[in-house]
């Protein structure tokens, strides 16, 4: 039972991180449901139809999502704010409809037979991505992303290729979501396209909003709170959407940057503060 809860918490954490990574360069993406679905089905086809083992399938699934993200992102990432939200929502819907219409992968009825993932896999994924994120946030590329997020034109005037930065974060975010999807599918055994729809995309974004948007730990807090707490407090489970919605409202009213709102300053600033 606990293993179950932890598994889903891990998956949600990966998804929250995937939103966070895209947010690093200032884009709010509601497409993570789509990338999760693509990753899940891609890995599923590889293991079930082609007999691959799990690890290469998961990696290829993530790469597939990243590839789609790059192709779709290239024309659309110049859009900002509301327009990007719309396009990413649209992407989630389109992927779902596409998946529902291919008999090869089960259509609306769903796709089954995937197996092999368990808590260990998720924990490994969380550890690996977490470590990579941690070292990233202490390095120079974090600063580059911060600059792009704050003022794209000025960042460009400093030599930063803004388009490439945005595409890169979009693709990496899609990779993480794809891996999460692949692991999810191989745990659940059986999935349907409706598992990966707009509501999922919205929830995942809201985990990050709740936990904190400025650093990599915020998504951890948001995902863990919203996945684990309801398991242990029954009222929360029954009224999950309301509790979630009200928590978000409260957070946005009182502490709009999220529960953990500190910004991780880079290594050099810390050095200076230490040496005076």
């Amino acid at each position: 039972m606990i293993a179950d809860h932890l598994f889903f918490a891990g998956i949600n954490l990966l998804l929250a991180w995937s939103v966070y990574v895209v947010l690093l360069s200032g884009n709010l993406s509601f497409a993570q449901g789509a990338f999760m679905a693509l990753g899940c089905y891609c890995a599923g086809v590889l293991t079930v139809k082609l007999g691959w083992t799990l690890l290469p399938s998961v990696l290829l699934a993530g790469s597939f999502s990243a590839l789609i993200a790059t192709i779709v992102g290239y024309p659309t990432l110049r859009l900002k704010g509301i327009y990007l939200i719309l396009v990413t929502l649209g992407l989630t819907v389109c992927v779902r409809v596409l998946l529902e219409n291919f008999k090869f992968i089960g259509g609306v009825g769903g796709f089954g037979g995937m197996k092999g993932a368990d808590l260990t896999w998720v924990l490994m994924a969380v550890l690996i991505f977490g470590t990579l994120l941690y070292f990233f946030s202490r390095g120079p590329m974090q600063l580059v992303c911060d600059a792009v997020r704050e003022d794209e034109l000025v960042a460009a005037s400093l030599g930063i290729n803004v388009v490439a930065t945005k595409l890169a974060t979009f693709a990496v975010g899609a990779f993480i979501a794809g891996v999460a999807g692949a692991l999810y599918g191989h745990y659940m055994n059986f999935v349907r396209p409706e598992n990966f729809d707009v509501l999922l995309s919205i929830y995942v974004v809201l985990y990050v909003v709740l936990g904190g948007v400025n650093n990599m730990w915020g998504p951890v807090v948001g995902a863990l709170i919203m996945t684990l707490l309801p398991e242990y407090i029954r009222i929360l489970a029954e009224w999950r959407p309301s509790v979630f919605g009200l928590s978000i409202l409260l957070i946005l009213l009182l502490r709009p940057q999220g529960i953990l709102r500190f910004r991780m300053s880079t290594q050099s600033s810390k050095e200076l503060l230490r040496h005076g």
Partner: protein
Amino acid sequence: MLVGQVLNGLVNGAMYSLVALGFTLIIGVLDKLNFTHPEIFMFGGFAGIISINYFPAPWGLVTSFVVGGILGLITEWIAFRRFKSPDSKITAALSSMALGLVFTDWVQKYWGTEPVSLPTLPSWMEQNVRIAEVEFPYLNFFILGVTCLLMITLHTLINKTRMGRQIRAVAESPMNASLLGIDVKKVSQVVFFISSGLAAEAGFLLSLRSASANSEIGLTFGLKALAIMAIGGLGDIRGAMLGGLLIGVMEALLFVFGWGRWVEMTVWVVVIITMVIKPSGLFSARLKTQEARA
């Protein structure tokens, strides 16, 4: 039958338009994206159910509008009042999303997640009309009629009344409007009331058509209206109306030609393409300049 399907498409389109109109009003006048809008649309059907239980059926038109309007006022107060600065636009949109989740949950707690049948309707609503040897449901014309009436009323309101002038002024520039003595808060409330009323009305009409109220349509039907608004141009009233009808007819035609499986995707493909080619929408004038031309 082609004509019948196209008519169906127009009716769907009319309802899309009403919801898209509401979205576009709030963006055009107040520069805010109201994600609670689709859920208020969803609630319109339930408001109708309650109303039909106590009053004669046609009163449902009025009650759903009023209930929607009130929900709109509540939304404005909870999700938007505090977030007025330009930086907070995304925060406000996210709040409204969260509020939408809460609304849906409460509806589902009270009525369950399955569609809820409407109580019995007056017989005239279920009859057909014969035109050129083809049977059309009377309801379709009723819905189209109501929609036309609402749009004409809206047009008159915006163009010929004092409140309409104030709305246009705020759309142009809230700061200048308040310097001219216009109560921007009141205008904001009026716009939210009208916009949400329209959405709930559309929800009620939809429930009449399917003889049931469904709590899931917010994120499917309702969100499409958001896409339609973007296709027509943010803030563009004419764009929302024409966009809705266009998408409605497109979906119907897809059905006719046997591509029904792809219908749910239509509007989203169109909006993605539009955003890439011409992000300002097919009719790029905003509320103010569109009115200036009218």
